[in-house]
């Protein structure tokens, strides 16, 4: 099964950084916008008030009576974004700035001192002190918004490059801070806990120190276990190999000394003993860490003929040669047919349904589909204890040692096992 790619720490940090930078910019922009708007409004209000206070003296001199609109005096033109009016107590405009778009109608019908808003204008009204006369100084809201926007944008444009530089710098820092992890991976790739005094070396970052310590401790435990396993295998090997050699030597002598009529029987016994030697040696090799598969071409017909099993018919049908470790395959097949025999099979058929795949199919009672599914699950998970017998476990280990695997195909009758012995 193909493994889904794992998320990258660098990628995640970079994405988070960009996201937070954008959010930070947005929040900063909003804050700047609000503050600038308030400050600019306040500043412009102060300007309106100052302008009103500056205008009120000269404009109010001598203008006490209302004038007709047709005779309304017009002051010199202003920019159009700023205007003022003198409004009499009757609510009539007595004097107004001459500006394009400036209102002729009074900004307020009734005297309204202080700041106020009318559509399109921000107004400051101040009584002139002459019979209810009011001076209104006004600025377009558009002008005020534009001023606020310009100041806010200027602040944002000044901040954006700094943000971009900060993002780039942080990305570079992230990459640089993640380099010790890449270095750790490199060290692990060349780390052999079985070498005397093997250690990962000093951690490049304080945060990696516990990781180094944990890996070194794990490697120490692993090395100790392997050393124990090797010691056990060595003892077991000695306990098994020496008697097997002794049996063969005794049989060799017996063959030489025996009468001619006894020799064929002795030779068969010696051949079987030698097969047993091969199987034991293969099993010892398989259970030893780091064992290597010794591939050779295996003729399945010859393999079936060599198996020391009595009371079970064995047939090889349309087989092609396998490339595998003959001793390991023999050990696996021996255990499989031993299983078959114990479960009541009377014959076993060997075939090669695909390249370097050996099928062993017996005519025993087989297993229920549910049980077959359980066995498949146990084999896939390599969780054999209590779930499969020794035969299937050994066969799976042998197939995996070759780079393949074991499968249990559905069969209408009997029980079938397929050993995929990996690429040739």
């Amino acid at each position, binding site marked *: 099964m193909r493994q889904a790619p794992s998320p990258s720490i660098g990628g995640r940090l970079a994405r988070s950084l960009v996201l937070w930078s954008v959010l930070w910019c947005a929040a900063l922009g909003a804050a700047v916008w609000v503050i600038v708007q308030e400050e600019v409004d306040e500043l412009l209000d102060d300007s309106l008030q100052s302008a009103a206070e500056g205008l009120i003296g000269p404009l109010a001199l001598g203008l006490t009576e209302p004038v007709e609109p047709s005779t309304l005096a017009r002051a010199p033109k202003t920019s159009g974004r700023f205007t003022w009016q003198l409004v009499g107590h009757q609510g009539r405009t007595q004097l107004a700035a001459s500006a394009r778009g400036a209102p002729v109608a009074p900004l307020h019908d009734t005297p309204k001192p202080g700041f106020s808003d009318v559509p399109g204008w921000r107004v400051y009204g101040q009584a002139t002190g002459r019979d209810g006369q009011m001076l209104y100084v006004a600025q377009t809201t558009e002008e005020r918004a534009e001023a606020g926007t310009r100041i806010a944008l200027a602040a944002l444009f000044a901040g954006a490059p700094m943000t971009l530089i900060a993002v780039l710098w942080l990305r570079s820092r992230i990459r640089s801070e993640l380099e010790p992890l890449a270095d750790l991976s490199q060290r692990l790739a060349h780390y052999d806990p079985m070498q005397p005094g093997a250690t990962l070396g000093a951690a490049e970052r304080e945060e990696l120190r516990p990781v180094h310590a944990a890996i070194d401790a794990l490697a120490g435990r692993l090395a100790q276990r392997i050393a124990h396993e090797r010691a056990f295998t060595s003892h077991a090997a000695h306990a098994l*190999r020496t008697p097997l050699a002794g049996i063969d030597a005794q049989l060799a002598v017996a063959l030489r000394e025996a009468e001619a009529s006894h020799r064929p029987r002795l030779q068969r016994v010696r051949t079987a003993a030698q097969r047993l030697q091969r199987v034991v040696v293969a099993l010892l090799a398989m259970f030893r860490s780091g064992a290597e598969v010794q591939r050779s071409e295996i003729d399945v017909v010859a393999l079936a003929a060599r198996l020391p099993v009595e009371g079970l018919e064995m047939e090889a049908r349309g087989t092609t040669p396998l490339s595998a470790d003959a001793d390991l395959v023999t050990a696996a097949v021996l255990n499989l047919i031993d299983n078959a025999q114990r479960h009541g099979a009377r014959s076993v058929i060997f075939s090669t349904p695909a390249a370097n795949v050996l099928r062993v199919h017996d005519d025993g009672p087989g297993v229920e589909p549910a049980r077959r599914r359980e066995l498949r699950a146990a084999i896939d998970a390599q969780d054999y204890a209590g779930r499969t017998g020794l035969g299937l476990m050994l066969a799976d280990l042998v197939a995996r040692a070759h780079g393949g695997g074991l499968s249990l195909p559905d069969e209408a009758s009997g029980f079938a096992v397929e050993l995929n012995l990996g690429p040739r």
Partner: protein
Amino acid sequence: MRLLLIEDDELLGGGLCDFLRVDGHAVEWARRLADIEAYRDEPFDAYLLDWQLPDGSGLEWLKARRTSGDVTPVLMLTARDLLDDRLRGLDSGADDYIVKPFAPEEMVARVRAICRRSAGSAGARIRVGDVEVDLVARCAWLGDARIELTSREWSVLEALVLRPGRIVTKAELERLVLGFESELASNAIEVHVSSLRKKLGRELVETVRGMGYRVGVAP
């Protein structure tokens, strides 16, 4: 050949001893390192040495023998089959290494090979003048004629041929051919040498007066 088998397992040791004797070799069997002391001054063509012995390491014993100048060929017989073990065995002075379980026929072939190489010959046949000695077929050829030898004659010839150019004393030859049986027949060696000369020519075995016998020259 006279061989010293150092093996603690009764089944294997007994089987190998019998096999080698049936094959025509003189074999002494030591079950422990301490037993080897009894053979300290005895001549052997090769040692067959187990690694793990009840009273110590065969490998350490071998190192000590090599340090003391013993050049007798050694075949390690051991259950230790790891590459590191094989390298250690060979680097400690063993001439060859065979992993248990093994067929005794292969073991004998390896013993022949290390003895042959020790005598300076790579092939199975060793030529001495007009005589060619076939160490595998256990016979000699004089020109084109195959000369049949008795077991004892062969043993004498083999012991001398495997020590080309070297003077082998009568006592040493007796030990090599007869083992501890040599005490029972004091003139047996002269009889067999004489017989060899009759069959293969007088020049084959040279008598070095007062010292012993010699075949050929050193390689």
